[in-house]
């Protein structure tokens, strides 16, 4: 049984890592085709993508949309979770359902709906339009994580603060938010990740100021080259570094 387990583990990890290893390896390919035999290593494709103006702009656009839209989604989700967890409102089940609903819908549908409405209103596709869409997909996530994290001990602390004369805003931002810090951080960074990597909404709702996944997609469609591997490897490296950084700073569990 134990041996079987190890064999399974090795097989499945091979499956999981195979494309990543191939991707990174052939980013160092010397010739134009990222297929065996490997004839590298060279860093020229990295130099090429780093010097690519539109790729670097896309990188900046993606970072901007991800951090901004995640912040808005977090704020809205946090407030909603506050409201719905403190008292039972009439129709609160319905409201919860509505807030969660976008999570159960394909992104393509959300994108097409927004595109239709924006077209009718004469709003140009832009980074902002994309950001609006990303808030729609991340709001349910933030709400769900924070709603689940709010418990009785927190309600008690809030009540105590209120009894002591704290204003509503003071309660929310000085009592509730700090108590929920781990959940808030988790929700925020998960939202950043989803927005950062989202393709179809950004594809349909941007014009010139595209995000990184869209830029990579057009790169992919305009010619086969290890440069695609290089940008993929860079994104991977940046994500992993951020992840490790977060892991050892923010999410490190206190030793018990």
């Amino acid at each position, binding site marked *: 049984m*134990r041996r079987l*387990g190890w064999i399974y583990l090795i097989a*499945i*990890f091979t*499956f*999981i*890592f*195979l*494309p990543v290893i*191939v*991707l990174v390896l*052939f980013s160092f390919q010397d010739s134009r085709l*990222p*297929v*065996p035999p490997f004839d590298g290593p060279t860093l020229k494709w990295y130099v090429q993508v780093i010097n690519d103006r539109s790729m670097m702009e896309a990188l900046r656009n993606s970072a901007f949309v991800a951090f901004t839209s995640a912040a808005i989604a977090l704020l809205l*989700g946090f*407030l*909603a979770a*506050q*409201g*719905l967890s*403190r*008292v039972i*409102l009439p129709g609160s089940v319905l409201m919860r359902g*509505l*807030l969660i*609903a*976008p*999570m*159960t819908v*394909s992104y*393509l*549908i959300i994108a*097409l*709906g*927004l595109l*239709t409405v924006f077209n009718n209103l004469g709003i140009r596709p832009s980074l902002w339009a994309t950001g*609006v869409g990303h*808030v*729609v997909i991340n*709001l349910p996530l933030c709400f*769900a*994580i924070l*709603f*689940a994290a709010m418990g009785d001990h927190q309600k008690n602390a809030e009540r105590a603060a209120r009894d002591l004369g704290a204003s509503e805003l003071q309660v929310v931002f000085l009592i509730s938010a700090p108590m929920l810090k781990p959940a808030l951080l988790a929700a925020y960074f998960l939202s950043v*990740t989803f927005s950062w*990597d989202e*393709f*179809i909404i950004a594809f349909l709702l941007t014009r010139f100021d595209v995000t*990184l*996944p869209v830029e*990579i*997609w057009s790169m*992919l469609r305009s010619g086969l080259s290890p440069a695609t*591997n290089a*940008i*993929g490897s860079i*994104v*991977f490296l940046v994500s992993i570094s951020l*992840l490790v950084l977060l892991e050892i700073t923010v999410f490190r569990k206190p030793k018990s």
Partner: protein
Amino acid sequence: MTLEHEERRRAFGFVAPALIWTCAFFLIPFAVMALLSLAHLEGRAIIQSYDLGNYIKIFTEPSFFKSIVVSLEITLTVTVLSVLLAWPLAWIIATQVPPHYQRLAIMLAVLPFWTSYVVRSYAWALVLGQNGVVMQGLIGIGLLDEPIQIMATRTATVIGFVHFFVMLLTLTIYSNLIQLSPNYARAAADLGASGWQTLRHVILPLTLPGIMTGAFLTFVLCIGDYITPQILGGNNELTMPQLIMLQLGRRGDFPMASALSVVLMAIVTLAYAATARWLKMERV
């Protein structure tokens, strides 16, 4: 009484911004799109005819109807395969790996999740091609005489999908497994159950919520995905999102794209209804 009233008013004030956002940028757009799906394209003009012409075409035109079938077949295959592959992985990590290393193991298991989503499918295209490392490797060790065609087939699409969703399901199932008390297994053993029986009749049913939550997310994300079948499927058949993008990108046919999206939405809603009793969407 008034205090409670005041409290409710205030609570509603907190919920309102999120509700307004969701209504303005999710509900209303969907309604507008549904309305648009009742129009049709004539030449290049959109005629608002308020009829079901697009829907009739979707369900009677073989090439349109087939996209529903193709999408469902691929999505169900992917969901089942992903669950079958992810469950043992989650179980091994949760029970066989020392607790101290579990977090590391689970992070490793989902590491490729952090590559760019567009690039991931492209990487599989490189891996699965006739000159790719898999075929050349299999030929190298003598298992194959010549490469077999996997790239540009449904198999390639399924492999690309399964790779992603195994990671997702491993997460949901693992988080379900570690919440189970070890007492269940102990009690079953005390009652004389074998290891296998315990697994099959005690542990497995208790992980149904994790499985179902992950399976539902897999279903939704898979059936709505355009990139993976477009890169790996070789256009040998069309899924619903591919057909939708074809309507948008080539024909400029917004009404038909909307109608297809409404059908896609209906399918997802059915899937939700089928799995709803196990889902804890608020606690993903």
